[in-house]
């Protein structure tokens, strides 16, 4: 028997390369390429009156300077709106290079291509642009009041307005014994991978072909978009995602202006061209997420059961909407979490501001939705004097109610229908892990020492593995080497390892014989991309199906050669043998030889497949009518709907009575993504997600001033957590299988970050005794809230037993 590979915490195949400096990230390629730099708008909203490049042309080493007017055909058109939606009535996208107007600081206006980046930047500094300033819209309130417009032809700055409703919310709320309304606020953050974006393109003039590399989450998407812009047949463009230094959502957006421009310039100049984003560019010209204002009204009975839920969201989509309105759609559907809401209505407005565009960042609208729902759960418990976990439990969808259809449309345009999950069991595990029932005693002991502590909780459900499809291709070489390819890309999730585990398991080969390629359109041209915690579910299942095809073919060929029935054979460690007669066996490499009848004996293995090498039936063709040569197989996985993972987190925080410093003492996670292919990797995903969640809860915000300048556009000023800020994460797992896919798995990539802001808010609120409605929260913010609380501007929680903080003596 081949050792059990599915479920084993095997070490990663990619690591030896990466720890010895042999990774190949975008900027590690193309040392001799020309390099591009961009002149970007220093203003948030302005008309471009004039661009004077005269001084820049003379800079030695400049190969080309390009403005919008140099672009022709499709290159001059606005970039595509990737995900249209009927309610996105006023979708707007930018041009590759700004045409007449800029709508945020950082928008590209001029591209300079030169011998290297230093020279290209020198030239950028010599270009003079004259602007006519326009009124700037920053912040959701300013966008909502609509006094100034980002786009002249978009009234009220409203890109989209959407409502979904199940049941009669107004009736449910008016007849509910209790109602309450919360106004909530979440600020912007960003994916902020350690490697920024980057593009490297080479034009082959003789063949009229473009090869490009992009630090992207979708090489098939970039390929198609660039081919369309450049007017090239798809067959003449290939795109490869090399090693990618993190994505977290921002690199699923495409095509970025730089992706089309660098490819265009490489063809125009007939020379390789590269662009590597620097950190400031990443802050001001990539994408952000999270910013929302929310109003939540809930009606509930005396037991805390939801009767009606009415939610209004104002979502900041930045200056353009190239990625559609996926984020607010996810917020408005995934807000429901593990609960039955009673009647539900959600209405959102997606609003333009003169800031960087908003596209999905790990969690993709869920952290905001969970924040809204979990704040409401805590508020209900407080109103009724009930235990917060108990209120949640009373509203849970129960395992026997699965599959559970919410009656709403999810982000993929398909029903929001949960496939499986055992929420009561998850909550039990979490309560045990954090010591929920012992917390009162813990708090009493802490208070006796003059310390202030609080316990917080948050639950979520995450739709993972959305379609439309992914594919897997597997080929066994005559040496026994197994080549696996799938088209979606990798940014650190360990796909080379987990997909190899699946193949080792399904095909019966050794892990070290399996070699996985991702994100290379030459190897698998049909793919969607890596986002929405979909890679393991989509490509994992496609690869498993492909492996089953290859296995069946191998057994067919071996049964024929060994003159036994297929059912008498088994495969282990790459060898097919007759059950009970291990001496009668043949390696998969030999089967591969047999699968491909040859005329020429170019090596020893090939000799065995040549026409005079053995016995054959003269009445049959060398390759049967319903077979293809080669031991290989391909399959695609395309689900009818997403599969829903879930999790529950709890944290204990301590707040400093004097400095208002917030410290996370414990952070506990119960996570259910179905059976885990590699638990070590799942844990790693959870740790990383929690760290990003902690950043979003306590540190990270995009500090735009009223003129639209991003004041903290560097790692010095944007506070991304270091090891000193991230707590040790305690984890426990449930493995509730999905009935929807062959492997029964669910996605895990985004989970860790989803409920963190909700959990930390819940814990701080519990510690401080007054409501927390705005995240992230800094010590300054908490200090200010304490002041307002003392001044009577902020109510106490009902359950609050703690006295308001004394005015600290300075």
């Amino acid at each position: 028997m081949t050792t059990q590979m599915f479920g084993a915490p095997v070490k990663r195949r990619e690591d030896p390369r990466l720890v010895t400096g042999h990774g190949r990230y975008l900027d590690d390629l193309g040392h001799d390429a020309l390099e591009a730099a961009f002149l970007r708008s220093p203003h948030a909203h302005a008309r471009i009156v004039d661009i004077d490049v005269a001084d820049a042309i003379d800079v030695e080493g400049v190969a080309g300077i390009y403005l919008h007017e140099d672009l022709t055909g499709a290159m001059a058109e606005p970039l595509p709106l990737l995900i249209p939606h009927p309610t996105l009535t006023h979708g707007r996208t930018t041009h590759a290079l700004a045409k007449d107007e800029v709508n945020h600081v950082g928008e590209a206006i001029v591209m300079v291509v030169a011998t290297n980046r230093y020279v290209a930047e020198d030239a950028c500094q010599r270009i003079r642009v004259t602007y006519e300033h326009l009124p700037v819209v920053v912040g959701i309130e300013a966008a909502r009041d609509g006094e100034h417009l980002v786009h002249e032809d978009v009234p009220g700055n409203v890109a989209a307005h959407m409502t979904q409703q199940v049941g009669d919310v107004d009736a449910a709320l008016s007849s509910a014994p209790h109602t309450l309304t919360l106004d909530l606020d979440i600020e912007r953050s960003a994916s902020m991978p350690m490697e920024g974006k980057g593009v490297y393109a080479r034009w082959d003039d003789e063949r009229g072909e473009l090869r490009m590399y992009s630090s992207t989450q979708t090489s098939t998407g970039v390929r198609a978009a660039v081919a369309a812009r450049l007017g090239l047949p798809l067959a003449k463009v290939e795109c490869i995602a090399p090693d990618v230094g993190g994505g977290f959502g921002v690199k699923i957006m495409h095509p970025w202006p730089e992706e089309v421009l660098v490819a265009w310039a490489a063809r125009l100049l007939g020379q390789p061209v590269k662009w590597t984003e620097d950190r400031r560019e990443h802050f001001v010209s990539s994408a952000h997420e999270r910013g929302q204002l929310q109003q939540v009204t809930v009606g509930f009975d005396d037991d805390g059961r939801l009767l009606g839920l009415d939610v209004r969201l104002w979502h900041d989509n930045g200056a353009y909407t190239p990625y559609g309105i996926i984020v607010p759609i996810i917020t408005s559907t995934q807000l429901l979490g593990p609960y039955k809401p009673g009647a539900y209505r959600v209405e959102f407005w997606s609003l333009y501001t003169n800031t960087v565009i908003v596209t999905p960042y790990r969690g993709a609208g869920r952290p905001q939705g969970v924040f809204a729902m979990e704040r409401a759960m805590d508020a209900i418990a407080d109103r009724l004097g009930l235990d917060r976990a108990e209120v949640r439990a009373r509203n849970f969808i129960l395992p026997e109610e699965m599959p559970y259809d919410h009656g709403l449309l999810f982000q993929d345009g398909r029903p929001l229908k949960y496939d499986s999950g055992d929420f009561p069991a998850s909550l039990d595990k979490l309560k045990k892990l954090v010591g929920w029932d012992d917390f009162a005693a813990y708090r009493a002991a802490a208070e006796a020492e003059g310390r202030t502590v609080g316990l917080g909780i948050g639950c979520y459900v995450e739709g993972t593995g959305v379609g439309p499809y992914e594919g897997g291709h597997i080929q066994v070489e005559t040496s026994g080497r197994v080549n696996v390819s799938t088209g979606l890309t990798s940014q650190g999730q360990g796909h080379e390892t987990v997909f190899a585990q699946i193949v080792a398991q399904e095909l019966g080969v050794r892990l070290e014989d399996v070699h996985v390629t991702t994100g290379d359109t030459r190897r698998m041209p049909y793919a969607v991309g890596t986002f929405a915690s979909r890679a393991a579910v989509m490509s994992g299942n496609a690869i498993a199906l492909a492996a089953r095809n290859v296995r069946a073919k191998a057994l067919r060929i071996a049964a024929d050669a060994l003159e036994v029935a297929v059912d008498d054979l088994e495969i282990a460690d790459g060898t097919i043998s007759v059950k009970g007669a291990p001496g009668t066996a043949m390696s998969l490499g030999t089967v591969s030889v047999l699968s491909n009848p040859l005329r020429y004996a170019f090596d020893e293995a090939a000799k065995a497949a040549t026409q005079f090498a053995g016995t054959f039936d003269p009445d049959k063709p060398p390759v049967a009518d319903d077979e293809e040569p080669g031991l290989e197989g391909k399959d695609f996985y395309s689900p009818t709907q997403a599969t829903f993972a879930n999790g529950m987190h709890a944290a204990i925080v301590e707040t400093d009575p004097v400095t208002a410093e917030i410290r996370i003492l414990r952070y506990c996670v119960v996570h259910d993504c179905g059976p885990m292919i590699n638990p070590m990797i799942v844990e790693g995903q959870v740790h990383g997600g929690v760290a990003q969640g902690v950043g979003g809860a306590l540190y990270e915000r995009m500090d735009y001033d009223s003129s639209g300048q991003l004041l903290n556009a560097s790692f010095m000023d944007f506070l991304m957590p270091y090891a000193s800020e991230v707590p040790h994460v305690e984890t426990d797992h449930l493995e509730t299988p999905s009935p929807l896919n062959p492997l029964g798995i669910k996605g895990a990539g985004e989970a860790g970050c989803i409920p963190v802001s909700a959990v930390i808010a819940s814990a701080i609120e519990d510690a401080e005794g007054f409501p927390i409605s705005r995240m992230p929260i800094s010590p300054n913010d908490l200090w200010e809230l304490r002041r307002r609380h003392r001044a009577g501007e902020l109510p106490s929680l009902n359950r609050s037993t703690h006295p308001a903080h004394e005015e600290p003596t300075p």
Partner: protein
Amino acid sequence: MPDPTEQGTSEDLHEVTVVVNGVARTATVPARRLLSDFLRHDLRLTGTHVGCEHGVCGACTVLVDGEPARSCLMFAVTAQGHAITTVEGLGTEESMSAVQQAFTECHGLQCGFCTPGFLTTVTAFLDENPSPTPDEARDAVFGNLCRCTGYQNIVKSVLRAAELREEQQVPYAAEPAQRHTASSVVAEGGSA
């Protein structure tokens, strides 16, 4: 500092020789060439990564005469005559250093972009403090940013590396300056 935009269009070039991973390497570069770019693009040692270009993330950390330094904050000309160890100099896939091995055992990396900076930092740290406590291990890496791992497995890797070094009896010199120095030059390497 002269503003390059106000100068003539050609730059003065300087021949720089640096001992990198025990091999003397020479390249001709402008004065403003960053050490990180020199290593990556002139010497083509692309294991050293650049995450912020302003000294905050630590991805570009190399050892200069055995001490961690941010190569994005140094000019190549400043490194003239010094000995530099990059991640490529710590070990090979066939023969990894204890720190490299520990990171692979403990899932101390995901995308791997920040990793070279952690590996060099941790190598120097363990030279100083061969048997750290968990708190010391966490403190050792708190100047480096990682967006993927949440640091938990990096801290675990530091502790595991200490164990592995103990098992392998990795010798360490008392004075950091005596390690990774020019005296260990093995050959005159090709110039770029």
